[in-house]
C-alpha cells in the first residue's frame, strides 16, 4: 500500500505572521515534501519495503547501517519534513518552560547557550541539511547537525526539535541569508509545548 502524507498541522498562511510565507509553505510542503513521498512510493512499489508499516520503518531499514540504499533519501526526507512542520506553530516562539527548560539548563548550560549552539549548527551545515535538538542514548539533550537527509534517528537518538536548512526551506523568503532564517525560526517559530511533550515522552522510559 502506498504511503500518504499527514496534512500540514496548520493552514498554508498560518506562519506568515511569524516570518514564514504562504508561498514558502506552498512550495516546501506542496512540492518538495510531496515529491519525496511520491518518489518514495514509486521506489518501493512491488518491493519488500512496501509492506513495512510506516515510513519511519522504511527509513531505518534503508539506512542500512550507514550505507544507505536509494530509498533512504526519500523516506528520511518524508519523516524529517513531517517532524519539521510539527516543530513549528502559529503561536510558536518565545522561550521553553517546564521539564525541557530544566534539561536545557542542566545539559546545555542554559537557553542562551542552546540558542548559540543551535544557530551555529544550522549555519555551519555546509550545503543541505538539518539542525536538531535531541535526547541522546544517555538521556541527555544534545544539539547536532546532519547533511542532506540524514537524521539523529538513524544514529539511535530521539529528536525533539528540528530546523530545515536546505536552501528550499528559506530561499523564497530570505534568499541567501540563511542566518536571518535561523534567527527568525529560533525567536518566532518553535513550538516549545510540542518540544516539551516530546522530551517527556523520550525520557519517560
Amino acid at each position: 500500500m502506498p504511503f500518504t502524507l499527514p496534512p500540514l498541522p496548520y493552514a498554508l498562511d498560518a506562519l506568515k505572521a511569524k516570518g514564514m510565507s504562504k508561498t514558502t509553505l506552498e512550495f516546501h510542503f506542496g512540492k518538495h515534501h510531496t515529491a519525496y513521498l511520491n518518489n518514495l512510493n514509486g521506489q518501493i512499489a512491488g518491493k519488500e519495503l512496501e509492506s513495512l508499516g510506516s515510513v519511519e520503518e522504511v527509513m531505518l531499514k534503508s539506512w542500512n547501517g550507514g550505507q544507505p540504499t536509494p530509498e533512504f533519501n526519500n523516506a528520511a526526507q518524508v519523516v524529517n519534513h513531517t517532524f519539521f512542520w510539527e516543530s513549528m506553530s502559529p503561536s510558536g516562539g518565545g522561550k521553553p518552560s517546564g521539564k525541557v527548560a530544566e534539561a536545557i539548563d542542566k545539559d546545555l548550560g542554559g537557553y542562551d547557550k542552546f540558542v548559540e549552539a543551535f544557530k551555529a549548527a544550522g549555519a555551519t551545515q555546509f550545503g543541505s541539511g538539518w539542525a536538531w535538538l535531541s535526547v541522546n542514548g544517555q538521556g541527555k539533550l544534545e544539539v547536532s547537525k546532519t547533511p542532506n537527509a540524514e537524521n539523529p534517528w538513524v544514529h539511535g537518538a530521539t529528536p525533539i526539535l528540528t530546523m530545515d536548512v536546505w536552501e528550499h526551506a528559506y530561499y523564497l523568503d530570505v534568499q541567501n541569508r540563511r542566518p536571518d532564517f535561523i534567527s527568525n525560526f529560533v525567536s518566532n517559530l518553535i513550538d516549545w509545548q510540542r518540544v516539551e511533550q516530546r522530551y517527556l515522552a523520550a525520557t519517560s522510559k
Partner: protein
Amino acid sequence: MLRSLATRRLAAPLLQARGMATQVKLPDLPYDYSALEPVINAEIMELHHKKHHQAYVNGVNKALEQYAEAEHQGDVGKMIGLQGAIKFNGGGHINHSMFWKMLCPPKEYEDPSGALEQAIEADFGALDGLVSKFNAAAGGVQGSGWGWLAYSPESKKLVITTTPNQDPLQPTAGLVPLLGIDYKNDRPAYLKEVWKVVNWAEAGRRFKEATGA
C-alpha cells in the same frame, strides 16, 4: 632582471613564514547580470554572483588566514579543523569562477565544434545523448552539488560525473549546472533550459588544453 626574479621567489616563503595567507578575489562576470535572459534572470545572476560566490570568497579568505596562523603556530589540530571550511568555500570559489565562463548569452550560443564535437560523437553518439545522460546524473544529485562534463586523461574519454556540495573536480572540461531556484522546485525544467546558455567554445578550449591537441 635576475636579481628581481630571485627576490620575487623568496618573497612568498617569507610572507608565509610571517603567517600571511593566500587570499582570493571575486572575479567579474564576463557579461551583464541580464545577459542570460530569458533563460536565467538577472535577479538570480546577481544573487548568485554578488551574494553566494562572494560568500565563498569571504569564507575561504577567512579560513586561509586562520590556517596560515595555525600553521605558523604549529597547531596541527586546528589546521585539520579548518580543512572543511577551506574545501567548501575554496571549492565554491573555484567551481563558480569556472561556471561563469561556462555560460554565454543565448544569442551567442553555438553547438560544439572541432575536436570536442568529434569526442562527443565518439563517446555519446550525439549531443542529445550527452544531454540526457548529463541531466539524469545531475537530476539524481541528493541535496546540493554539481553535474560535470569532464575529460578523463586516464581513459582519454569524456565522462559525466557529479560532486556533492562544493567539492571541486580535478578534470578540466567542465560543464556545470548549479541548481539554483530559478525554476524553484523544478530542477528538471532548469536542466532542460540551461543548455541554451552553455558556452561550448569555452568547453572546447578546455578540451584542447586537456588533450594537448
